């Protein structure tokens, strides 16, 4: 089934609004929503799911047996992230820099390094009526989000349409989120920042070979440069959401728009059809 990522270069453009409303507008027993913005997940605030499971996620970090270690420094040499320093007869392990790649343990000639799991966050899953929901919560102060994002994505069940709410930006967490999806929907706004970050996000998605479509939020504010940009790049604008006080009020109250406005339910269903059409069109090419 289709795996759809909702992303944006700029934060606050409306990724979660689109993800939540799209998920609720479709047939619930055929959809799953995963919130991969593990640094500040917020889709649950709108969906209010009942969580049925919670699991801790960790990354493997090194533990050095000083009785076996001969302080040769090989572990520090092979670590690409400066997570180990060998100082005379001590080995300093900087867990917060460790990416969990396992190189130190693999290359240690004395087999003095074993790995243990250091918790970085939790994944939770549950239901919102018939809609499946899952998200991750990164521990405060933690910088290493991709392993947790991978764990959220692994919850995906292939028999449902998967809608993934991505973190903002274009760095590692976003790449981890969108890389193996079938389509990347980019949400933007018609402002200079919106345009600049749409350009960055489009380049990222293109590099990953993902078909892309654009949603312009607050489309009647700002200027026409985003539309011109999409036109010039051949990027399809799949939906425009005007600046509407009622939509903003629903959002501020934590209420999904489609539950209160049947007209928007139809519009989000149409958006989904356009996404599927576009994806099939790109596949044919």
């Amino acid at each position, binding site marked *: 089934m289709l795996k759809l990522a909702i992303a944006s270069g700029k934060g606050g453009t409306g990724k979660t609004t689109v993800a939540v409303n799209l998920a609720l507008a479709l047939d619930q027993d055929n959809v799953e929503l995963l919130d991969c913005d593990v640094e500040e997940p917020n889709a649950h605030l709108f969906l209010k799911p009942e969580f049925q499971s919670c699991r801790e996620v960790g990354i493997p970090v090194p533990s050095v047996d000083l009785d076996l270690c001969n302080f040769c420094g090989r572990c520090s040499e092979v670590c690409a992230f400066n997570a180990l*320093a060998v100082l005379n007869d001590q080995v300093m392990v*900087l867990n917060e820099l460790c990416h969990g790649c396992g190189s130190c343990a693999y290359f240690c000639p004395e087999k003095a390094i074993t790995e243990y799991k250091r918790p970085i966050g939790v994944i939770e899953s549950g239901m919102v009526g018939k809609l499946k929901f899952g998200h991750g919560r990164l521990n405060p102060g933690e910088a290493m989000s991709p392993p947790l994002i991978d764990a959220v994505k692994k919850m995906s069940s292939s028999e449902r349409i998967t809608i993934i709410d991505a973190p903002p930006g274009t760095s590692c967490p976003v790449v981890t989120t969108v890389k193996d999806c079938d389509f990347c929907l980019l949400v933007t706004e018609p402002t200079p920042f919106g345009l600049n970050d749409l350009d960055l996000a489009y380049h990222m998605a293109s590099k990953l070979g993902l078909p892309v479509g654009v949603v312009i939020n607050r489309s009647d504010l700002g200027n026409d440069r985003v539309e011109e940009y999409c036109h010039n790049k051949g990027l399809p604008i799949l939906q425009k959401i005007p600046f509407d006080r009622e939509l903003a009020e629903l959002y501020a109250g934590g209420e999904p728009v489609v539950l209160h406005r049947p007209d928007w339910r139809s519009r989000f269903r149409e958006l989904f059809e356009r996404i599927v059409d576009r994806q099939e069109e790109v596949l044919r090419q």
Partner: protein
Amino acid sequence: MKLAVCARGEGLGAQTDQRFGRCPYFVLVDPVSDEVFESIRNENAAAAGGAGPQSAQLLANRGVDAVVTGNVGPKAAYALKAAGVEIYTGIEGTVSNSLQKYKEGKLSLVSDATVQAHSGMKNDK
């Protein structure tokens, strides 16, 4: 005795750098003879993280006995202590000036961090 001075360039005439982990060069000198053993370009200066402990490791591998710097952060202080490298703070001017201060006993021997993590980044003006 091998002393490492945090510097912005090579040799005794170079300006000192207040940062430990991210100083561009370490000038290794003999405080008795004023002889420069070598000026090491600090590859850790641009590291994403862990510059302090890596720099401590670098100096430990070169057999440095003491480092002369402006400030030292918590991880660097821990690593230097583990490596048995003494830490002196209070450098200013050139490497030569700081060497003089060291010889006159005007630098402070510290055993703990003098600044918080990443504070050195603010000193590079």
